[in-house]
């Protein structure tokens, strides 16, 4: 199936989950990554159970924060 990851179209296996995509994309420091699918944020606890569908648009957002 075709999905769009960070603006790039990709062909991936049917049934791929958000966790699987994180592995496939070699996402650095995944513990600090927020994922959106079609502009809806996915709870990190649901990464393994969220199955991607044809045409989904996925973005990986790195947590950006700090303190004094």
């Amino acid at each position, binding site marked *: 199936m075709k999905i769009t990851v960070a603006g790039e179209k990709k062909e991936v296996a049917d049934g791929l989950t958000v966790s699987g995509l994180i592995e496939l994309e070699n996402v*650095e420091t995944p513990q600090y990554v927020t994922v*959106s699918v079609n*502009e809806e*944020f996915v709870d990190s606890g649901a990464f393994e159970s969220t199955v991607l569908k044809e045409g989904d648009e996925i973005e990986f*957002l790195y*947590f*950006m924060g*700090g303190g*004094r």
Partner: protein
Amino acid sequence: MQITIKKSDFDRMYEHALSVRPEEACGLIAGRDDGVRAIEKVYILTNIDHTNEHFTIDPKEQLTAIKDMRANGLKPLGNWHSHPESPSRPSEEDKRLANDSSASYLILSLMEEGSPVLNAFHVESVEGEKVVRKEELTVI
């Protein structure tokens, strides 16, 4: 690493940081990277922590900004935040949460009234330790 920021963008950051003080202000930077990094757009985003001790960029606004960068052919270059009461250098928490070694981290200190100080830093993990290097920032 050399990095440039327009005076008008610096002024916008400073004015915003003053307007939300004592909270920390924050946002993203984007532009070109042809050896010298040129910041062409500064995004002023919401600090959802709303405190003077921490900042977390609103992820919804972050997503909108990333899409805007893509639509305008700009490269994400890093982020910026203010230190209302402390110097322009990464705190321990800043270092701990700086997880993108390709990013420039800009810190705007408001500690000296009327004399804002903006510095840029590169942070990377080396053998489990965060190593900070100051970048050569020029306001143009």
